[in-house]
């Protein structure tokens, strides 16, 4: 094996996010959304607060692989400060990206570090790892949005 192959998937930025994830840790007093990945038993929880239609708090905690940890970390970076509809659009764009579907340049730019996870498309069994946090955020968004109304 050439370790180059490993580098294809596990780019430095991914390893860095996984080793020192951003916005990691939960607050006891905030509502939380938990999803799990039945294949590996991984569990991921996000907490998300929307104030005046803007994501003002977004943090997570998880037991999971490098891909899921890194993906959760970059997700918090990307979505924090976004409006609900911007966030929803970016979540959809990220899903496409990791499925290998081309996305608009504008979305790609907005995704920032997360765009690096596009390499997951070549590893179909790992797509679920990459999308877990984003699915959790999407679900949390519907919950807070519903609460607002």
């Amino acid at each position: 094996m050439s370790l180059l192959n490993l580098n294809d998937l596990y780019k430095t930025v991914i390893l860095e996010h996984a080793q020192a994830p951003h916005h990691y840790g939960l607050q006891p007093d905030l509502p939380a959304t938990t999803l799990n990945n039945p294949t590996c038993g991984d569990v991921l929880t996000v907490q998300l607060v929307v104030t005046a239609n803007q994501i003002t708090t977004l943090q997570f905690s998880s037991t999971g692989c490098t891909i899921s940890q890194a993906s959760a970390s970059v997700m918090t970076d990307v979505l924090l400060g976004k409006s609900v509809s911007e966030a929803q659009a970016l979540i959809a764009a990220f899903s496409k990206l990791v499925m290998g579907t081309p996305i608009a340049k504008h979305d790609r730019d907005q995704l920032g570090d997360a765009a690096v996870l596009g390499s997951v498309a070549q590893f179909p069994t790992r797509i679920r790892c990459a999308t877990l946090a984003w699915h959790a955020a999407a679900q949390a968004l519907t919950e807070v949005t519903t609460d607002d109304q």
Partner: protein
Amino acid sequence: MTRTDYRRTFPILTTKVNGEPLIYLDNAATTQKPQAVIEAISHYYAYDNANVHRGVYTLAARATNQYEAVRDQVAAFIQAPRRDTVFFTRSTTESLNWVAQTYGEQTIQAGDEIVVTALEHHSNLVPWQQLALRKRAQLKVIQLRPNGELDLAAAAEQITAKTKIVAVAQTSNVLGVTTPIRELAQLAHQRGAVIVVDGAQTVAHQPVNVQELDVDFYAFSGHKLYGPTGVGVLYGKLALLQQLTPVQFGGEMISNVTFERTEFAPIPQRFEAGTPDISGVIGLGAALKTIQQLGWPAIQRQENQLTAQLLNGLLNLPGVTVYGPESVAKHGPVVAFNVNGVHPHDIATGLDLAGIEVRAGHHCAQPLMQTLGVAATVRASVAFYNTTAEIDRFLVVLREVKEFFQQ
């Protein structure tokens, strides 16, 4: 033919994955298939295909004879006393569920106990758990010793006069340990319970004699035994099978039907409703023949050597935790481990990039994972066709992957 010759008859073992020669180390999930099995299926469809038990014409007779001949082979393979004490299901999972739905359903009452062990696969846990919930019975769990072996003293405590069913795997699909089936059967019988054995991880790796073990039910899958998917086996003691009513109805499992009532056929037909997986059964016959031709001594010698190499190699790697017994003598050909600080998925992906296929996850044994205090493990499992060179390469690449992630 030598063992190496037999290896050559498995076409997939000469293919490449991710540009590297395939090293298949997920044999506990499913084994690869020799040409003999693939050809038995092709030949059946190209020359003999007809529905079984139904026609008086030549093709139908050929199909039926081949199908029924495999029943004889299976009975001989596990030393069942009579051919009609084995029948074909889809899988181990279906076989075990069948026992829960028939014997379990008819026997278990509120307050009774069903005893399982802490190492069960979901397929030998959830059916009993759901039965217990339905019947307000109690599900009890025999715990393991710290090295993963079953604790017979704990078993003797858990199995009581209230126990009606003891359900246990003969070999763990995670820890590789083998449980003392004969002793458990004795305990169960002394207390008036039956013992149901999940042989999924056993039958490909050692001879099994259901009469000597004195088990009441014994279940396994063809696909873990070099045979096709879609076919499983259940053995049951004659007196038990004869008292059980079917759970599926239709096709050739009847002897007489009116709109008002149905008389069922004798065993084993009674339990094989509808068209069975004929080609699967015939493929299983070819697999059993391969095992017989190669012989247990050759199989066990190689698997013991590979297991020792794997186990010792992993035990000697710093930063690696191995689950289950550290002694090869107590080990089936399955080794579960973790690389400290690296998620099993990442290890499996790293190995996969080098063509090495291992499992990462909970291995359908979530409660055991809870007992081990982990969410998941990596698992490498060997078959007789694996080679020492493959294990060497696995250990080398594992070290590289480990260093990559621990850099």
